[in-house]
């Protein structure tokens, strides 16, 4: 059975590929997960693959996976919410570590228990075989190279921009982009890899960010540049005055808005040109 399993309209791996990935994941000793949470993962993946995503609710998980009875009330008995957090954390740790080379990745985005399946961003060579044709594939999203122009000569701006970059990393990866950061000169291997990307950009974009400390506040700005054409695709900025100096949550919100803006723009662009970006 092939189809779209996630709500975001992205092209998905085939059912067989997902189920094989699930079996591989469940059999892995490297996945730090209780037996109960392995059943949780298995339940939501199988429901999604079988086209029963609407059944994936706290109530059905509580009853079918955690053995609660009909009176199960997730507000008094938050077992599903807690275990979902631990499951997400375990999956992230697995794919960041021993499962780094897995072709198909299973994740459960926050705010939902419906799993999302994507082709590994590091398995481009196998992706065409594993993905079915569709509107836009998670495995086809552009590479974003973050280039931070803030830090030199201004340690405070450097610290603030580090916070902004951290938040962007999380949110851009949630939008399924491949993300790289232009490294310091002493990391020559990484720098060479990115210079090669600049020389032959393909679908890559540069996200140039700057944080400036002003007399009366701070200004966070970014520009998205198509590395193939140098065209500035979009840009934005936000300034905060000193009394409302941004806390991590506000910077996180700005990063999330930035990632969504970039994602929407690249998706629209990709549709308008009928190709990939």
């Amino acid at each position, binding site marked *: 059975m092939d189809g779209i399993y996630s709500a975001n309209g992205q092209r998905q791996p085939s059912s067989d590929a997902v189920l094989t990935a699930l079996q591989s994941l469940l059999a892995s000793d490297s996945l730090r997960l209780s037996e109960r949470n392995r059943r949780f993962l298995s339940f939501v993946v199988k429901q999604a693959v079988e086209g029963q995503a609407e059944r994936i609710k706290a109530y059905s998980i509580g009853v079918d996976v955690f053995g609660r009875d009909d009176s199960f009330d997730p507000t008094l008995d*938050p077992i599903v919410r*807690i275990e979902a*957090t*631990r499951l*997400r*954390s*375990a999956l*992230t740790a697995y794919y960041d570590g021993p499962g780094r080379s897995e072709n198909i990745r299973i994740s459960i985005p926050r705010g939902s228990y419906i799993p999302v399946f994507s082709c590994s961003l590091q398995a481009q060579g196998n992706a065409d075989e594993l993905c079915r044709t569709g509107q836009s594939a998670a495995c086809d999203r552009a590479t974003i190279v973050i280039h931070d122009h803030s830090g030199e000569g201004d340690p405070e701006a450097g610290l603030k921009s580090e916070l902004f970059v*951290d938040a962007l990393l999380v949110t851009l990866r949630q939008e399924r982009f491949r993300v790289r950061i232009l490294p310091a000169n002493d990391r020559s291997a990484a720098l060479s890899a990115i210079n090669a990307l600049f020389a032959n950009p393909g679908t890559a974009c540069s996200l140039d960010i700057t944080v400036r400390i002003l007399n009366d506040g701070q200004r966070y700005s970014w520009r998205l540049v198509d590395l193939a054409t140098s065209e500035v695709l979009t840009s934005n900025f936000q300034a905060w005055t000193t009394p409302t100096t941004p806390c991590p*949550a506000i910077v996180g919100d700005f990063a999330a808005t930035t990632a969504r803006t970039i994602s929407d723009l690249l998706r629209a662009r990709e549709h308008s040109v009928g190709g990939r970006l």
Partner: protein
Amino acid sequence: MEHARRRGLARLMLRWPDRRAQLRSFSPDDPRLGDLFEAYELACEAAGYWQRSDAPFGLERAREYQALADATEEDILLKIS
């Protein structure tokens, strides 16, 4: 949600005084740990709720949540070690 994260982190610092300095270096909104802080707090609160409950399965549920809080605590300590 933010309060739960903050309380979860504070509770961990109380439980693990020898790791307090290390825990203090994390924000309650840390992208890697914030949700686990919240889950930990939820598990501890649920354990307390069911401990006080007069439901027939209250104690059993309280033990389940205490075990879950311990497991979540272990997840967090493993991540920061």
